[in-house]
């Protein structure tokens, strides 16, 4: 990569000493991307965009926020009523957090469907799960900051999860609280960490991308690109395709912010925190509900906590549970059925997590929890051995070319590779 390719003398001067323009150029033009990516591959960029939106709106919110039990609720109300555009900035922060999780959940299920966690992308996948964990911690602490009823009781219940740890549990909870209950010291440290963690996430995202660029993107048919005829440059092809997704994403976010800003929130969080009274029905934010359902499905405290963390732990070892050499579900007829069952199971858990823990809901939660673990720990290892997969195409270009030749389809004709 030589600096001569830049016309602008300032750019050339800088690039000679600090080759950041070369690096950007390298990503844009030289980084080969499989040419058959579908819209499911938009969600990585959308996750990055969400993180940027969260950081920008968050820093602005912090300028008017006060992390003190006597002032926090008022400060947020002041942001909503008096600070210029404060209501909009807060609603963007609130709703973009939900959108961030929607995007990341789709991103994760994309990876599950197309086998993107398989060799050689195991570390890339694991870094993704790390980001997911950090996001959950960040969102949890952010939700405490407005110091409403749900903030307080959410914080109480979640921090108490650690009291299930034998022997040291109670000391850990006291350490987290900085006192004998969730109180001012807790709010202070949560604000400090809520500010920090998004930047830690940004750091792990960099590692995620370095790992991605080692072997490039997976693709819908899950076989490696066999040469330049199977790839195109990121810019302008995928920058344009990503723009379409970004436009749709921003449109939906704007609809949520301006027309349904509280639809994904809980009305009880507009009641100031009261340490003496638990709301009748406490639920976490919607994006935690599947895990909350697993927690409540177990009638034992430690058991519930272990299973809940176990639900994420299985994702870390997934690359070694599913040993099938075929990546994409397109060529795995049985896996594909179980994939959809898992998706239904996850949605069902989310629904059950929001229902009271009684009667039929408990029974269903137990079945759904059992199925979740069965899927990862039993079904996937068995499928890797017993499933007969469909024959894989010889190259990424092959299925497209053979289709356009046989059917002479006008659509396929446009996809001829520019060799």
């Amino acid at each position, binding site marked *: 990569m030589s600096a001569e390719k830049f016309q602008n003398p300032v750019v050339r001067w800088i690039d000679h000493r600090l080759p950041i323009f070369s690096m950007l150029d390298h990503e844009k033009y030289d980084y080969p991307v499989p040419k058959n990516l579908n819209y499911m591959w938009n969600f990585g960029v959308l996750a990055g965009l969400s993180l940027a939106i969260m950081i920008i709106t968050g820093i602005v919110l912090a300028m008017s926020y006060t992390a003190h039990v006597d002032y926090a609720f008022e400060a947020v109300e002041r942001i909503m009523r008096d600070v210029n555009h404060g209501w909009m900035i807060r609603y963007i922060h609130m709703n973009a957090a939900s959108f961030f999780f929607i995007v990341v959940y789709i991103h994760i299920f994309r990876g599950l469907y197309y086998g993107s966690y398989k060799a050689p992308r195991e570390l890339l996948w694991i870094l993704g799960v790390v980001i997911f964990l950090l996001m959950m911690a960040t969102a949890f602490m952010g939700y405490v900051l407005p110091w409403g009823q749900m903030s307080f*009781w959410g914080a*109480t*219940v979640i*921090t*108490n*999860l650690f*009291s299930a740890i034998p022997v040291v549990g109670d000391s850990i909870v*006291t*350490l*987290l*609280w*900085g*006192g*004998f*209950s*969730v*109180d001012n*010291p807790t709010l202070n*440290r949560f604000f400090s960490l809520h500010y920090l963690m998004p930047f830690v996430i940004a750091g792990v995202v960099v590692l995620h991308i370095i790992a991605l660029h080692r072997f490039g993107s997976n693709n819908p048919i899950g076989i490696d690109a066999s040469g330049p005829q199977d790839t195109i440059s990121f810019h302008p092809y995928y920058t344009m395709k990503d723009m379409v997704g970004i436009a749709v994403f921003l449109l939906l976010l704007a609809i949520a912010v301006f027309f349904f800003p509280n639809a994904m929130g809980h009305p009880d969080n507009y009641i100031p925190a009261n*340490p*003496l*009274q*638990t709301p*009748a*029905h*406490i639920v976490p934010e919607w994006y935690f509900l599947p895990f909350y359902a697993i927690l*409540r499905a*177990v*009638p*034992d*405290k*430690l058991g*519930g906590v272990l299973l809940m963390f176990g639900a994420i732990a299985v994702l870390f070892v997934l690359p070694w549970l599913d040993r099938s050499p075929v990546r994409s579900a397109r060529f795995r007829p049985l896996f594909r059925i179980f994939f959809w069952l898992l998706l239904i199971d996850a949605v069902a858990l989310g629904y059950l997590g929001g229902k*009271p*823990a*009684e009667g039929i809901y408990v029974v269903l939660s137990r079945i759904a929890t059992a199925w979740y673990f069965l899927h990862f720990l039993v079904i996937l290892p068995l499928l890797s051995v017993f499933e007969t997969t469909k024959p894989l195409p010889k190259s990424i270009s092959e299925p497209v070319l053979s289709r356009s030749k046989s059917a002479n389809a006008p659509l396929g004709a446009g996809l001829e590779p520019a060799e």
Partner: protein
Amino acid sequence: MAKSDIKKTTASKRPEDPGRRDFIVIATNAMAGLGAAAVAWPLIDQMNPAADTLALANIEVDVSKIAEGQSITVKWRGKPVFIRHRTEDEIARASATDMSDLRDPESDQARAEKADYLVLVGVCTHLGCVPLGQKTGEVRGEYDGWFCPCHGSHYDTSGRIRKGPAPTNLEVPPYTFLSDSVIRIG
């Protein structure tokens, strides 16, 4: 010069006992590790309760105003404390319970200094919600004591766990009767 070359030259000039070299390296790393841990500890321990938080005062409560069958909630160390003036029937049921029915066996006598007044930390031992049952008309659960709505724990008239995910009985805070009607909690 590449790293391996350096090693070779030094090794040829001064043949050393590899065991000794390893020992120095391990000892140095161990010292650095200890130093790092010593620096990290204050940074972690600062999160524990500060001196003023620990010094939170005791509270004194006049219990003579509580009518039989009624309860009050007071705040102690940021947490609710339940004080219930129990009825004869509630006391009788609490003391008649068979120990083998209890998940966390404790006799009622051991939990209430004076049987009339039951003093409890009003924090569910599952995940810390405040159980219902203090106000008249609130659900009290299947054992007529307290009911935690968060994940469905039932406590009896002695505050002992009977059903649901909570592992232990409602905690009895340290308290003393200063007179017949005033107790000090803490």
